[in-house]
């Protein structure tokens, strides 16, 4: 009962539900900063064709490696300069946000949903299926994520869904482990016995009682993992193992800039800054959500 007491709201006036969560999140300054940046990047991704001043893939060899327009002695009027093929960097960064956001979101969802479902089943029913799944999860844990993803990408070849699969194929394990532990802990609680005593079916106990108690943790973990997936996607793109190279992805752009870093520092620097800003924003929102929803996860 001591653990149950910890879950009783400290202030009776605190609003419950999604609106209460949002209201509390709104009073969390760093989470709000993260949310603002995230909203700006998302808006950039959605309205990219309207916002970008130039075609992100059109090369213009006349204005190769033009410096950012605010630098002394710059010419060409490109705000963040151009790359080795004369493509406008700012436009490419705006379009590149689509890759990072979509891959990050898809990899998170495709890790979270199977991880949560399998973890719930394994933790609630236990038995042989749990044993087999746990062994498999342990096996995947033996590979550092980037090394595993590099191997899978080399096997599958470039492409959006291949990239998502390479990340999710190992990504579900974290969600599985947390959900399994949670489901095991929850099903040992008295309220589950009580529900069973009044005749509730297993499906009802899982769906109505256990799952809602685990959603917070999954949401927090999902947000924090999304930042991780975005960095992994950028790292794979940097190694040339992401999307086909003609599409503007931030990691690819940093790699392209590496070849001209001795003369044109801006080509690598700005796409990289975009990655840092997005990952920072996602992590800020994730940590804010954790503070509000699930302070237990704070212990690292």
């Amino acid at each position, binding site marked *: 009962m001591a653990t149950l007491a910890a879950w009783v709201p400290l202030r009776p006036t605190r609003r419950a539900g999604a609106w209460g969560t949002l209201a509390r999140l709104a009073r969390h300054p760093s989470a709000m900063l993260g949310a603002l940046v995230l909203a700006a990047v998302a808006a950039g991704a959605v309205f990219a064709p309207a916002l970008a001043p130039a075609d992100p893939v059109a090369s213009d060899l006349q204005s190769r490696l033009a410096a950012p327009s605010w630098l002394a002695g710059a010419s060409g009027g490109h705000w963040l300069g151009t790359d080795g093929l004369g493509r406008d960097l700012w436009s490419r960064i705006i379009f590149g946000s689509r890759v990072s956001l979509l891959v990050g979101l898809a990899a998170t969802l495709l890790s979270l949903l199977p991880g949560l479902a399998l973890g719930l089943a394994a933790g609630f029913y236990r038995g042989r299926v749990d044993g087999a799944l746990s062994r498999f999860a342990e096996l995947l844990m033996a*590979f550092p*994520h980037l090394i595993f993803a590099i191997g899978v990408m080399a096997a599958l070849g470039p492409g959006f869904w291949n990239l998502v699969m390479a990340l999710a194929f190992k990504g579900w394990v974290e969600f599985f482990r947390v959900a399994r532990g949670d489901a095991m802990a929850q099903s040992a609680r008295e309220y589950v016995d009580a529900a069973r005593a009044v005749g509730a079916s297993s499906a009802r106990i899982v769906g109505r009682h256990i799952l809602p108690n685990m959603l917070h943790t999954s949401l927090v973990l999902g947000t924090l993992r999304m930042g991780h997936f975005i960095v992994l996607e950028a*790292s794979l793109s940097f190694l040339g193992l992401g999307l086909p190279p003609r599409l503007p992805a931030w990691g690819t752009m940093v790699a392209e800039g590496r070849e001209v870093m001795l003369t044109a520092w801006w080509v690598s620097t700005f796409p*990289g800054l975009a990655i*840092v800003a997005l990952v920072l924003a996602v992590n800020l929102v994730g940590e804010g959500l954790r503070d509000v929803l699930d302070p237990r996860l704070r212990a690292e």
Partner: protein
Amino acid sequence: MRALVVLRRVLNTIPIMVGVAVVVFVVMRMLPGDPVDIVLGQTGAISQQDLDRLRRDFHLDRPVTEQLYRFLAGAARGDLGTSFARRRPVFAMLVEALPATVELAVAATAVALVVAVPVGVLSAVYQRSWLDRLAMGGAFLGISMPAFWLGIVAIIVFAVRLGWFPTSGRIGFEVFLQPVTGFVLLDSVLTRNWAALWDGLRHLALPAAVLGAGLMAVVARVMRSSMIEVLREQFVTTARSKGLAGRVVVLRHALRNALIPTVTVVGLQLGVLLGGNMIVETVFGWPGMGRLVVDAIFSRDYPVVQGAVMLYAATFVLANLLVDLCYIYLDPRMAL
């Protein structure tokens, strides 16, 4: 009782390593392109006879199950096959590349700990001060920053603009160093070659700092939070009430206990360090295992990739085993 648990945990790593080998084998067989074509691609015109002989040499004409069996049996003996591209034993290639990787990883860990432990302690002691806020802000930035970009920016600023460090490599071409162990720093000390030591350190500084940055951020955060927790413990209060100086209490009593979770985190972050080294070695042209794997993937040199990934996974499994054993040692309840 405890010995039994330890034994079981140790034996548990064997099926995991076999599973790792199978997974690596299966993924590598999924790779597109016939390796024989790739090997011969560089040599030009070749007869069907040579092709068949090459296939036989690499056992590519045998059923996949037999190939798997050969691979597992060989791996158990330390025989990881022969590189398609360079026709050399993979094991020898890995052993050759290992010192560079270990040197970089050790240096990165050292850089991370030397900075992160004091910063974490100070942040905990002066909680909510400007120093704490600055340090934790920096650490948060550190965990959000991809290593490949940090590496490139470091090269642009410190190597190209300021010229303090070389842009890539492990030691300058003009520096002669008699190889003894394969570790540049160790060899230059052993042969009393101070010019080589200085050059090696200059080459090591940037990649070590970049690879260590992520670990630094994580360790500083963990160090801070575990220190805050320990400072609330009763034995700290007791030490203070005995009239001990604040510095003694923090360094003698609290730090030791707060270091335990930090050690665990360092062990568990080893995987991140190993994954990161592929990126950092590629960015800095560091001739270690990470670059060997990345190059091997692009030249479809299966045996090298297989061997290296197995070595990575083995290191990772071993590190996790050590962390678990530390846990059992530090907290006997874990053995239950």
